């Protein structure tokens, strides 16, 4: 009796034996179906490997070109491994010889003659002439070929498309604007030498940070460069102002020390002593009100009240040492003009003109002044702390305007030299409103003398000096 037929399983021994001229055809059909199962499971793996391989290739070419051969090897290994895994998974669905035989005899209309002949009932049927046309299955090439082509295209694109290496990108790191970097170096040096107090250093660093908050690709725009240049100029001016104030305060402290050592002989001497003390207080006040504060030592000694001669001398030394630290901190910087710093390096008397020597009478530096003071030409009587209008408070005024419908409120700092870095010199309540109707200029006899447009001058003035020179050269031809 025939054994129970189990589709998809091999025929029971002794019951169904495929043979004869149909054996290889049944085997071919079985192989075709099994290959189809294997492909249908493997193709998604191929797509996954293709995507991962594409990503890995691009990353390898970007990070390290030496890894590219390894990536290709990995892709090949992954394809082989997934092919084996797909075969293992598809194995449970593989077609048996008996099942393929049923499919073939049913499709060809052989009236189950193969199954009968396989067990010895009747002869093997003759293969029909149109066997290939009536073959039970056909490949759907679209999906596998399309998918493999897609993966190949992805890998090819990943292999040949231009990819900038990470090293190249590293060389293209956008450096900080030169002026901002210079100011940073100045602040680092000043902090290292303790030439300024920490608060002043942090204030400058905050301004640098504000400047660099903008996107990197906009660091080198005109406005950014101008702001950085302005910060550098302002910082340099603040340092120079601090240096001068320190020198003036040191000279005043030395004068006070000397006057306290000498016993007042007359009323004028007493007045001179009082004047020296007042000059010291004024200098210290200017030092405290300045945009940049001196170092901790000088500041501490300057805050001591009721000085003794020794304290005054120590104060003078501290102030002078602070000035020297300023110079030392900036000595290595090629960007800083050291000549802008006060240069009094000693406790010289001559920094205060005596008024009696020939040099004083001739209007030259006092003969008793130190060499540095003489070289710098910054001596008392030529812009000392007792000169000028004194403190320069911020004042607010109303300004009439021809354009605005209401008066503009303006804050003015009348002493630009004492303005802190970034301090608002002028605030105008109004925007940039170029004239809609251009100014036609003076007319004489119907001829237009100046057909300039409104706002043109402002835009020209905003150009950098070098750019202005270029514009001038261009229009001078």
């Amino acid at each position: 009796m025939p054994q129970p037929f189990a589709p998809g399983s091999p025929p029971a021994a002794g019951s169904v034996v495929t043979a004869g001229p149909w054996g290889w055809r049944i085997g071919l059909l079985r192989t075709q179906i099994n290959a189809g199962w294997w492909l249908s499971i493997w193709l998604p793996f191929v797509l996954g490997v293709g995507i991962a391989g594409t990503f890995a290739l691009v990353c390898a070419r970007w990070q390290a070109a030496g890894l590219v051969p390894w990536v290709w090897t990995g892709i090949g290994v992954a394809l082989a491994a997934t092919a084996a895994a797909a075969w293992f998974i598809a194995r449970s669905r593989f077609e048996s010889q008996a099942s393929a035989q049923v499919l073939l005899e049913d499709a060809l209309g052989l009236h189950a003659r193969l199954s009968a002949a396989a067990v010895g009932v009747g002869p093997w049927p003759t293969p029909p002439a149109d066997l290939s046309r009536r073959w039970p299955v056909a490949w759907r090439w679209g999906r596998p070929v399309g998918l493999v082509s897609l993966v190949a295209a992805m890998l090819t694109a990943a292999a040949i498309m231009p990819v900038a290496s990470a090293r190249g990108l590293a060389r293209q790191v956008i450096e900080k604007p030169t002026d901002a970097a210079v100011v940073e170096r100045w602040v680092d040096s000043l902090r290292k030498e303790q030439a300024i107090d920490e608060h002043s250093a942090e204030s400058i660093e905050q301004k640098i940070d504000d400047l660099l908050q903008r996107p990197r690709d906009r660091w080198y725009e005109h406005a950014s460069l101008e702001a950085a240049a302005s910060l550098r100029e302002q910082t340099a001016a603040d340092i120079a102002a601090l240096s001068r104030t320190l020198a003036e305060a040191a000279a005043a402290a030395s004068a006070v020390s000397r006057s306290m050592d000498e016993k007042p002989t007359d009323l004028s001497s007493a007045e001179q002593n009082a004047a020296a003390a007042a000059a010291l207080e004024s200098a210290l006040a200017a030092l405290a009100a300045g945009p940049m504060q001196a170092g901790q030592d000088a500041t501490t000694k300057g805050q001591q009240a009721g000085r003794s001669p020794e304290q005054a001398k120590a104060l003078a030394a501290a102030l002078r040492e602070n000035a020297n630290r300023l110079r030392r901190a900036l000595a290595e910087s090629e960007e800083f003009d050291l000549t802008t710093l006060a240069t009094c390096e000693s406790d010289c008397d001559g920094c205060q003109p005596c008024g009696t020597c020939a040099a004083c009478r001739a209007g030259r530096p006092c003969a008793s002044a130190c060499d540095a003071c003489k070289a710098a030409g910054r001596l008392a009587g030529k812009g000392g702390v007792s000169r000028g209008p004194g403190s320069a408070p911020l004042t607010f005024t109303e300004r009439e305007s021809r354009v605005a419908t209401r008066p503009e409120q303006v804050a003015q700092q009348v002493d630009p030299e004492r303005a802190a870095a970034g301090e608002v010199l002028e605030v105008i309540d109004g925007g940039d409103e170029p004239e809609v109707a251009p100014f036609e200029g003076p007319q004489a006899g119907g001829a237009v003398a100046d057909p300039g447009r409104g706002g043109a001058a402002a835009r020209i003035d905003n150009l950098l000096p070098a750019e202005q020179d270029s514009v001038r050269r261009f229009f001078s031809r």
Partner: protein
Amino acid sequence: MPTTTDAAAAASPPQITEDEARGAAASVAHLRRVLGGVLFGQDDLIDMVIVGLLARGHILLEGLPGLGKTELVKGLARALDLANKRVQFTPDLLPGDITGNPVLEEADGRRRFTFHQGPVFTNILLADELNRASPKTQSALLEAMQERSVTGMGQTHPLPRPVVGLATQNPSELEGTYPLPEAQLDRFLFKLDVPGADVDTLERIVLDREIGVAPDVARVFDAAGLEALLDLVRRVYMPVPVANFIARLVAGTQPGAATAAGVKFGASPRAALALAAASKARGLAAGRINAAYEDVRAVAAPVLRHRVVLDYAARLEGLTTDRLVTRLLEAIPAHDSALPTSLAAAKV
């Protein structure tokens, strides 16, 4: 290449020779031609009746009156030189009127009961309008035909061989009828619908027939010849994959199967046997030594249409058993395993 093993040779299946198959096919073809001269334009019906006859099954014919059912049975009986009887079933028909009755007879001064055979004792019985008889009478007839014997007064009386019952029922005028229950329907091998005649057939009937005159029917073979043919059918080989196909088809009608939506009761194992027998008969009629998938598909509807009971909702939706069988054959291929999507079953 592997060859048939010794074990296979030892367990060689019953088989017929190609010559025997060809001879049987020639006889069947002759019978088909003869019956074609009796009943015009009903070749498919004639084929199925012959297949049912060869499969030793009883056939339920459903069709309107006057379509030639009785003529077909008479023609079949004459062609096979078999006895035939016709019984018009009515509600007052008793079981004994079919199977026979014991009659008290006096002979030689002694009285005794003698069993008088009923009309079921024939080779071909036409039970006209079977659904008009009471269930008791229907059951008696069908039981006798199923068992191929009648038991009365403790004695078993075998029916003549071969015996084939052809019952008819009218799909209209159902008032006062007793529809056959599923258990009785299951005893019929086939349920065949007798279609109406088309114009060409009617024209041929008008030209060649006359009311009250029976057509001449040539004798094809006798009862012994038919028995030999029936024996050949039993020896037609049933390949294992074909048997598997039959089994999956019948299992596919069971409620709960994916292909049996709307089915209340599925086909019984007897249906599987009927499919196998009919497939073998059809295979032999086609001159083959084995049954084939095509044979199973051809006889699936006549075998299954009266064995599957649809639920109420499915009937309301217009589902019929014929459509269910069609759906079943589409869903269940001979090859019982899926094909990969990358390899389309382009020609299967």
